[in-house]
């Protein structure tokens, strides 16, 4: 799957320009500082850009089909069954009035998914079947994020767009969710774009990265190469920030009090 020349203008202001990248079987990280346009790029791919925005570029599917990103109706037909979003704040995206089971059943039916069941989906994301009877407000942040992942899987997407799916979780829940996400995408052959601002986190499950700044791609390639020789100041800052965490592993018990 390939994205060609993604651009987005709002009231004549370019918010995204000339974004090209492909997702070729290995998870791709979309990195950049706050406001770089990461989430907006995902919304454009889903046909959910602001209504007044002017969108350029195209999405080229695995079968060669070319879909103009300005064609909101065509993107709406792809949304869910081909491209699915795993949102940042899952708890807020769940229907507060309905049990987890009802929400899963609705999507299984909507997307004619007879292969999965609510129980099998929850098992797949590492939750037990007792969660089926729960309402969203009784779930922890990590549990809600897993339910959101199960809902995304119910659509059987070809490409999963994960928008900072762990930013509201503690490090323990974050590591568990990322490991589950990677395993599921491998088993189900789902392509993955992970939006994040943390290079170390991206490196945990992605091999390649596209770095955005102010709506443009400033660097892309293998994460190992980017880390070894960052070329753009934004990338240098991301690498430096990730490296500072290394102090944790270089500590020895013989070090001073701080």
């Amino acid at each position, binding site marked *: 799957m390939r994205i060609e020349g993604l651009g987005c203008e709002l009231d004549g202001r370019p918010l995204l320009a000339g974004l090209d990248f492909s997702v070729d079987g290995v998870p791709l990280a979309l990195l950049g500082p706050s406001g770089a346009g990461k989430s907006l790029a995902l919304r454009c791919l889903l046909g959910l850009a602001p209504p007044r925005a002017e969108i350029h570029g195209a999405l080229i599917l695995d079968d060669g089909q070319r879909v103009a990103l300005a064609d909101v109706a065509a993107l709406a037909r792809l949304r869910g069954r081909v491209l699915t979003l795993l949102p940042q704040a899952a708890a807020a995206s769940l229907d507060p009035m309905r049990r987890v089971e009802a929400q899963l059943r609705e999507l299984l039916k909507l997307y004619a998914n007879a292969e999965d069941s609510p129980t099998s989906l929850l098992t797949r994301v590492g939750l037990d079947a007792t969660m089926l009877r729960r309402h969203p407000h009784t779930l922890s942040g990590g549990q809600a994020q897993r339910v959101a992942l199960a809902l995304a899987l119910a659509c059987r997407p070809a490409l999963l767009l994960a928008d900072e799916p762990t930013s509201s979780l503690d490090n323990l829940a974050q590591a568990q969710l990322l490991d589950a996400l990677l395993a599921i995408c491998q088993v189900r052959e789902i392509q993955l774009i992970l939006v994040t601002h943390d290079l170390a986190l991206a490196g945990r499950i992605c091999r390649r990265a596209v770095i955005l700044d102010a709506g443009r791609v400033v660097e892309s390639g293998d994460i190992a190469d980017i880390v070894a020789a960052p070329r753009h100041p934004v990338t240098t800052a991301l690498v430096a*920030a990730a490296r500072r965490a290394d102090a944790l592993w270089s500590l020895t018990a013989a070090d001073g009090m701080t």
Partner: protein
Amino acid sequence: MTDMSEGPGVALLRARGLGIALGGREVVTGLDIDLRPGSAVALVGPSGAGKSAVLRAMVGLEPALRGSLQFAGAELVGAPARAWQPLRRGVQLCWQDAGTALDPHLTVAQLLNEARVLMGLARWRVGSVELGEVLRRVALDPALARRLPGSLSGGQRQRVGLARALAAEPALLLADELTSALDRPVAWELVDLLRGLRQAGMGLLLVTHDLSLLPGTVDEVIVLRDGEVVERGPTARVLAAPQHPVTRALRTAVPRLHSP
């Protein structure tokens, strides 16, 4: 290495056997903490460990306390509400969702001045050196002083919350997951700011689940799980050779950059 709780210097805020009850159940039990000017302590643990409850208790927002909590030598547990006044003057709490706790009708400058007036401090004029300086310290453009919270990003609002706490010139700063919503480069800028504040004599209690922020930032680490302290000690000892499975899991969970 000596036990921090018996180290030199007077603890401004001291908890002994502190317990916090919520709905009749004790959610935190038997907690000892000493916070001194110029020193820093981290309270770490997974979600639901009771970290935020401890912070609320330390500013008088948890009504059902057991054990002892002293500010400047005066006992607060069981004391009348006015006994908390000296603590309110000397201690600032920066919430995890500081951005959502800002009055949406006040500009950044007004928000900071509100905190100063409550503390009996002189207002800062918009454009003044002091106001610009505190905004720069939290990595905000001083030009944002006239903006309303609604026109700022979530990360900017979080930093306004910290600037507001600093504007009150506290002796102790309690910070709840200060950096978890921020870009990593900005998060490190704030960590550097906290280190500087500490060097300048402020006492710190940091609540976090991110152990990578702690080396060079805090003297002592206290690990909480289900409301109980499962491990504590000097930062280097706890982080380099964690004894408890929870501490080890927290350490392993820190995303690590794999250098080629």
